[in-house]
């Protein structure tokens, strides 16, 4: 039934596939997102190892593929083929199911993340509430994994992690509420919990919420940015898996594929919380200055960015090819890197062609593609900044101690976020 399949590409239909009840496209979106997030996690794996290595005056993976580009694939293969050990005294069923809980929680969140005004699986009326709720389910996987391992280090890691995530959720939730409060600063005085509507509210009010009521929006954003690091168990709040204290915390007893599922869940959760931050405070899919520079010419200029970015990456890769040692030992690596550069260049070319083809007509398929690419590009770019920050934190800071973590969560972040919430409400009432 081509009608059923094509219905979503019809430019007259607005809304997300889930919202429009279009189950076929919703399923396609779910698959795209699953594949996309998995790929992003793999890229993130490579990027983290390389970036961390360069922070630390070393090279990182260099052997598997040119500049270690194939390293994540090799890692994934290794982890899949590795023996999956379940300790004899462990609770078999719970041990088996724990990583899946974390993974499910991390991936379910993506159903409401808006990569664009209609580039989301579903636009739920309670989007942000759903997101916070489901991402808080991830802690169950960790707690249960620590318990099921039937070993002391994982148990301590699990207890730490549950206390940590529960207490940082409070500050996180309050910061989110102050952003939601800002959505109601319009003529009708009605706010929204829908992720798409939150971005639209920023567009209507002409300001990203990070700059709204400066510095209130910024403080709320900072609270969220700190809490989300704690929420995802990353350095400097990685107490649940503190290597030097608890060997590996809650996943000490895990190995092979099951362990890699934990890692997948962790990185997926990182991307998910970064997406929340981007949606709530950094304008989601919007390009910079959508209201100030709204002429079609500006639209065209900004739509060139995706192509130019990939072009730049291709150029950097090509410089890498040229600079690579000419020894015959590196011949295959050189060819591989050149092919990679060519692929990137091709991608850049395709993106540029789409941008140019879709520049004028608003209803053509090319224009819709151009728009969609634009939205996803800006969204992903903003998320990528957060991903880089995660790596940067890890390279820079020592780890907090458990009591200090709790102190910061309850005695610093909670009062500040409460204060920001009240001030936002007061300022909003005064200004409206």
């Amino acid at each position: 039934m081509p009608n059923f399949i094509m219905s979503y590409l019809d430019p007259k239909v607005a809304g997300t596939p889930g919202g429009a009840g279009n189950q076929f496209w919703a399923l396609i979106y779910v698959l795209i997102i699953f594949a996309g997030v998995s790929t992003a996690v793999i890229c993130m794996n490579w990027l983290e190892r390389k970036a961390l290595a360069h922070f630390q005056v070393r090279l990182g993976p260099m052997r598997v593929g040119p500049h270690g580009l194939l390293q994540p694939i090799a890692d994934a293969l290794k982890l899949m083929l590795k023996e999956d050990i379940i300790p004899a005294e462990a609770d078999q069923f719970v041990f088996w199911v724990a990583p899946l809980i974390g993974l499910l929680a991390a991936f379910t969140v993506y159903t409401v993340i808006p990569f664009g005004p209609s580039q989301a699986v579903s636009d739920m009326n309670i989007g942000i509430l759903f997101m916070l709720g489901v991402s808080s389910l991830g802690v169950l996987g960790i707690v249960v994994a620590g318990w099921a391992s039937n070993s002391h280090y994982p148990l301590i890691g699990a207890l730490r992690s549950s206390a940590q995530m529960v207490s940082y959720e409070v500050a996180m939730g309050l910061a989110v509420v102050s952003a939601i409060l800002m959505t109601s600063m319009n003529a009708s005085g009605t706010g929204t919990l829908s992720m798409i509507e939150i971005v639209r509210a920023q567009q209507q009010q002409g300001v990203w919420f990070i700059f709204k009521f400066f510095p209130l929006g910024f403080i709320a954003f900072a609270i969220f940015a700190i809490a989300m690091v704690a929420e995802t168990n990353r350095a400097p709040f990685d107490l649940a898996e503190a290597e030097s204290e608890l060997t590996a915390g809650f996943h000490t007893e895990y190995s092979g594929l099951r362990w890699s599922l934990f890692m997948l869940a962790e990185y997926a959760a990182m991307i998910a919380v970064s997406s929340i931050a981007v949606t709530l405070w950094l304008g989601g899919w919007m390009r910079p200055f959508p209201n100030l520079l709204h002429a079609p010419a500006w639209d065209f200029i900004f739509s060139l960015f995706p192509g130019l970015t990939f072009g730049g990456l291709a150029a950097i890769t090509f410089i890498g090819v040229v600079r690579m040692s000419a020894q015959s030992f590196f011949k295959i690596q050189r060819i591989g890197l050149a092919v990679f550069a060519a692929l990137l260049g091709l991608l850049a070319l395709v993106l540029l062609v789409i941008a140019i083809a879709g520049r004028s007509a608003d209803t053509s398929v090319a224009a819709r593609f151009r728009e969609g690419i634009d939205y996803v590009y800006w969204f992903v770019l903003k998320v990528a900044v957060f991903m880089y920050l995660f790596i940067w934190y890890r390279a820079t800071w020592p780890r907090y101690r458990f009591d200090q973590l709790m102190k910061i969560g309850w005695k610093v972040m909670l009062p500040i976020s409460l204060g920001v919430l009240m001030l936002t409400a007061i300022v909003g009432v005064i200004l409206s």
Partner: protein
Amino acid sequence: MSGYKDDSTNVSNGALSGPDRSHLDGFTPGLENPDKTYLDSNELIINMGPQHPATHGVLRVILKLDGEKVLGTECVIGYLHRGVEKIAENRTYTMFNPYVDRMDYCAAVSNGLGYCEAVEKLLNVEAPARAKYIRVILTELNRIASHQLWLGTHALDIGAMTPLFYTFRDREEILKIFEKYCGARLTTHAFRIGGCQYETYAGFEKDVKNFLTFFAPKIDEYETLLTTNRIWLERTRNVGVISAADAIALGVTGPVLRASGVKWDLRKAQPYAAYSDFDFEIPIGTNGDTYDRYLVRMEEMRQSMRIVEQAVNAIPEGPIMGKVPKVIKPPVGEIYHSIEAPKGELGYFIVSDGSTQPYRIRVRPPSFVNLQALDIMVRGLLVADVVAVIGTIDIVLGEVDR
């Protein structure tokens, strides 16, 4: 856990004052009432080590925990015991010299210096001035290398990954000098009884001076990473506090003692080698906490650079070997000689029966003695602090177990 005795190590109930435990808010780890804990459920007894990322080798610490709080610890050592002292009884004095390098393998040069000087004292010979200067240069370089290793691993234990790679990058330069001088990087066997075996290679002074100019900004680089880092401050300040009285009573030496405010450094107190010729300060701390120990060691690296600079500028010409007989046969007697190794007082007690082999050698390793302070330092703190304190004591298990 069998073999775990809680009362044996409780120094604080005895003559010593013990660290300030006011942060325990009323909860006393109950030796009087060992079954009562926070939740009144059973305590958690966990084995930290012998295979654990943060115990610096094969130290095994049995931790008695109440949740995260440490009620008591017991160190189980001996996993790296090689019987170095016993081996000495079956080796000649010269043959035993390389063995001492294997004790504190992070500061092998200091070990060799202590042993050679002890035997020289027993033989009643003295190394020539040039040899003494070379010894000082190499020993101080080795002190810097040892402190670098300590800094990297200590920071890694507390969760900062990056300093480890910075310090290893810079330690490499020192190891290169060692390699050029004597062919070995880690267990150098740099000195011989009576002086040095090797004359310095051409360009030794230049290399050392290059290193000094190279390294001065690097210390500042480490300090920018850590010294004013808020998390680092919170993790190290008031952690693992040991008072001067406790430290002295436990026999703690080295930077751990000096951080508690005791100005005791054998290089000044009883100068050996050529240390009396040089002008340097002894950094001391005030609180005796982990942060003070960190600062003391950082400052010690700077002072070592000062010493090296003075020594390399004033290195005299002359022979490098004293008048030592081919076969070393010390007179009957005994001798104790100690030097200031990077980790503290490294002493050698040698009993000679007049033969070519020592009758008995007893080593007083600084790590072994300092490790005793672990229990008193970590009681009432959290698990994460145990790791930090093990790091700050700066133990090397090769030296603890010998």
